């Protein structure tokens, strides 16, 4: 039924065309005398309607787009949605394992120890300094953010994997949630009136026309920066790696090939580090922004006294 849909058929055709893997590119480019389209390599990073696997391309279930007013929302499972879900499942399994091992004994070991180190680090070095003891109630959100982003960042570094966080839509979704959490925590801590009063920036009433839009804009810039930072970092590393692969395919020489490959290994290590770093940065900044909102309340109360 889905496949009879003309839109789906069209996209499927596009997807299969786009997903020519690098081997085929090399082959065809060889036939055409060295010139190959680098943009084909970048298709690796694009979202697609199928998942690469050792068994070839596996097509994913597609749904007809939903029309909401003028907007068309396509809820089909794409490659990035697939990895989004896969990472979620992996995360749940890993964390349930940790939680269960704690039920057996309070003494951690191995994998549990490692995860505990991260959890305690986030609690003692990120949440408590930025948000104080009141921030501990947001620990589950921040922990989920950190580990989910981390596992998504790492998903692109394994063969056949894709990085959902390398898609701006995914980071936008995460930023929307971060935005909501920042506002919710601020309203919770200050109360709605204080929160709204804060939007005026403490300026005299005749400046509100200017201040309020600026403050509201300010609310959006923070999550927007989160979204762009994560997306750009995840995409950048992949583009560099693909560019270096492009060099290999362009020169088609055994003498030249080792050098880009060496760089690829280096960049891969860097990406591994960046995957952790960006998950940490996203979490740290979210908790910082939440802390700014919640601590503004104590500030307001201080000024009242």
């Amino acid at each position, binding site marked *: 039924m889905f496949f009879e849909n003309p839109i789906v058929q069209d996209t499927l055709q596009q997807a299969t065309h786009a997903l020519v893997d690098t081997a085929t590119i090399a082959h065809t480019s060889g036939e055409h005398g060295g010139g190959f389209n680098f943009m084909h390599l*970048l298709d690796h*990073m*694009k*979202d697609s309607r199928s998942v690469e696997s050792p068994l070839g391309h596996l097509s994913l279930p597609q749904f007809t*787009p939903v029309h909401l007013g003028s*907007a*068309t*929302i*396509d*809820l*089909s499972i*794409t490659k*990035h*949605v697939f990895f*989004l*879900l896969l990472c*979620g499942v992996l*995360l*749940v399994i890993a*964390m*349930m394992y*940790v*939680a269960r091992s*704690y*039920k057996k004994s*309070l003494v951690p070991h191995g994998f549990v120890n490692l995860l*505990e180190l991260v*959890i*305690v680090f986030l*609690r003692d070095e990120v949440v408590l300094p930025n948000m104080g003891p009141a921030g501990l109630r947001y*620990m*589950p*959100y921040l*922990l*989920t953010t950190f580990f*989910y982003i981390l596992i998504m960042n790492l998903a692109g570094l394994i063969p056949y994997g894709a990085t*959902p966080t*390398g*898609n*701006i*839509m*995914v980071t*936008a*979704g*995460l930023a*929307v*949630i971060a935005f909501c959490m920042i506002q919710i925590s601020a309203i919770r801590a200050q109360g709605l009136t204080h929160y709204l009063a804060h939007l005026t920036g403490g300026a005299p009433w005749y400046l509100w026309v200017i201040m309020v839009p600026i403050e509201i804009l300010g609310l959006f810039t923070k999550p927007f920066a989160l979204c762009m930072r994560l997306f750009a970092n995840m*995409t950048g590393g992949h583009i560099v790696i693909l560019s270096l692969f492009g060099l290999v395919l362009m020169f088609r020489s055994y003498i030249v090939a080792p050098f880009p490959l060496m760089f690829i290994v280096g960049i891969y290590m860097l990406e591994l580090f960046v995957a952790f770093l960006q998950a940490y940065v996203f979490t740290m900044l979210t908790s910082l922004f939440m802390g700014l909102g919640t601590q503004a309340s104590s500030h307001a109360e201080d000024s009242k006294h």
Partner: protein
Amino acid sequence: MFEINPGLIVWTIITFLVLLSVMTKFAWKPILKMLEERESKIRIALEEADRARTEAAEMLKQNEKNLARAEEEYKKMIQEGKALAEKLKEDIVSKARQQAQQELKLAMEEIKRNVDAAKLQLRAEVADLAIKATEKILEETLDEKRQKQLIDSVMNKLPKN
């Protein structure tokens, strides 16, 4: 990469929210609770260890004091015992000496008495012997032949006139 696909945002938000609720319930709450529990446990254990250490140190001090006192007492006791033993020894020795002297005196006296008695007896016996000897001599003289002889000799000695 840059394609605008609102469906992905929706998927992300849905996945994240589901993940958040599931993880909060089944993973984060238990994990954080356990961490808290263990931390408090460790804190309590450390405090207890600290207290036990101070207690032990106090006990050690007390023990040392007790030991010193015991040693002192023991030294005193030994000294006392030694003194007592010395006194007792002297006592015993002097008493023994006294007794020995007394016994010696008694023995001397006894010996003297015995000697005296023996002397007396000897004297009596000597007298007796003398008497007996005299008697014997007398008896001998009194038999006929001897008498005759004796008389003869006496007669002979007598002047012939």
